[in-house]
């Protein structure tokens, strides 16, 4: 009787603790950003300066916001054909058997590889190739990072997709077949329309992951603080910038980095919320 009460309080208090920690993190970001916000206001988001020279210090988030969006959206575009094929393969064409279950394990494995290992692979295997192809002198840059990111997010983009595809009711597929549809027509007219929002939600969640990904990107993007001229240029993302510069940062630079952290938090929050909303609409 009493132990039950204690147990209940224990559960409740760990729940409350989580909420407090989350609130604490957000509060830290807000409080830490105040000096930078006071200095630059909303102009911070639109400024492309990143100048730590004493006396001429000036900071803005634009190159990193652009860099983040470019790498993650490009990664999503690269992932799309692969993730989509995998979803269809596992969700409809080959649901059972040895080959699909092997493929599933490989994809799970991809999701479990630490990001720094992806970074190493990108650095030693992909970067020389990119440089060889003459795409970019050193092989660093947005494009290189996006390819590695694309591989990293394939599991996220494909698993929800294959799940919703396999959940399309058999009775609908039968209805279509009974009307003389071919398998391809069933996929196009029944499976994709019925699973579409779930597939889309998977991509949004994968995008959220790509936006926040840090280590592999830092190792490959070239860490330039200018707005990238194109997808083959060097660049930097918000997460990568913070990881690179946090150690030596003080004063205005410190608070600017915190504000970039806050912006990153807001962007990933919005993207994840969007994904969850679509999923919720789906299950309703």
């Amino acid at each position, binding site marked *: 009787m009493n132990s039950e009460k204690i147990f209940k309080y224990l559960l409740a208090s760990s729940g409350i603790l989580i909420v407090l920690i989350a609130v604490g993190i957000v509060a830290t970001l807000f409080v830490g950003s105040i000096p930078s916000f006071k200095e630059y206001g909303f102009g911070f988001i639109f400024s492309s300066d990143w100048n730590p020279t004493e006396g001429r210090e000036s900071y803005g988030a634009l190159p990193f916001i652009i860099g983040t969006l470019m790498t993650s959206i490009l990664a999503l575009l690269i992932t799309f054909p692969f993730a989509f094929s995998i979803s269809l393969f596992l969700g409809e064409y080959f649901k059972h058997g040895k080959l699909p279950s092997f493929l599933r394990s490989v994809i799970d494995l991809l999701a479990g590889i630490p990001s720094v290992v992806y970074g190493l692979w990108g650095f030693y295997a992909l970067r020389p190739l990119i440089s060889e192809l003459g795409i970019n002198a050193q092989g660093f840059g947005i494009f290189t990072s996006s390819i590695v990111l694309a591989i990293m997010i394939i599991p996220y983009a494909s698993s929800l997709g294959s799940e919703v595809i396999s959940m399309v*009711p058999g*009775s*609908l597929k*039968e*209805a*279509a*077949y*009974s*009307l*003389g*549809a*071919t398998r391809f*027509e*069933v996929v196009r*007219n*029944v499976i994709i*329309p*019925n699973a579409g929002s779930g597939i889309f939600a998977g991509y949004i969640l994968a995008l959220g992951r790509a936006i926040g990904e840090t280590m592999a990107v830092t190792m490959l993007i070239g860490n330039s603080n200018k707005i990238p001229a194109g997808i083959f240029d060097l660049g930097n993302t918000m997460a990568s910038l913070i990881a690179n510069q946090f150690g030596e940062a003080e004063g205005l630079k410190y608070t600017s980095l915190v504000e970039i952290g806050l912006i990153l938090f807001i962007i990933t929050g919005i993207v994840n919320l969007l994904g969850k909303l679509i999923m919720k609409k789906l299950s309703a």
Partner: protein
Amino acid sequence: MESTILAEMPITKTNKKLNVIQNSIEHIDSPVLKIDDLSVSYGGDKYSIRNVSAGIARNKITAIMGPSGCGKSTLLRAVNRMHELYPNTHNKGAVYLGDENIYKLNPIQLRRKIGMVFQRPNPFPTMSIYDNVIAGFNLNGIKLKRPEKDEIVERSLREVGLWDEVKDALHNRGTFLSGGQQQRLCIARALAYTPEIILLDEPTSALDPIATAKIEDLLVKLKKDFTIVLVTHNMSQAARISDYSMFMYLGELVEYGKTKQMFTMPKDNRTEEYLTGKIG
């Protein structure tokens, strides 16, 4: 309801029949569909239906009855080759549509000639009522002009008695309709293609009595334009609306004949036992 129908058609103990197979399968003259010594397996050498032979009469309703698992759905699906959606099926024998063995045809073409309606109403939830009706055309990539489509949609919905109920909501989702309306929409979807034969697998078992009665009336009306084959668990339904009845038992076609005849004077013991509720 069931008991009154059966009471009208008493199975008299006096007309004891001979258990002769040839006699218990009625011969149909110039059938639209001829099932010829058909056996179907879902894999291995276990056949779910065995050596079924029967002609299906044109512009009639043929009911398939029998206890659960006896192979009614298997027989029905073998006729439009829907059973082949399962991976390891194989069959022996033939089914002729006109002069052609359907197993020599392209199943896609075949299914456009033999429509199907399922146990649970299954309109496409992502499509409007309108698009559901012409789904057969859209799915097969057949491009129609707007007036043609309108004409097909109106004709099909009128045929199933749904036009007046939905004509102002054609572009709403079909899934907002009641169960009975959804099932009639599914029948309209199968009709739109003007198939020769419509197969229905227990189309009313998920519906209430009023919706069921509507579908039964509809089927009786439709037989002037189509040949209807109906699987049903409901004996009184078979008695009410079918012209011919099949009784299947453990994968075999035990008895096939005029419904009136079968309900009043079944030729096979097992049919009688089923009709009187002793088996099944």
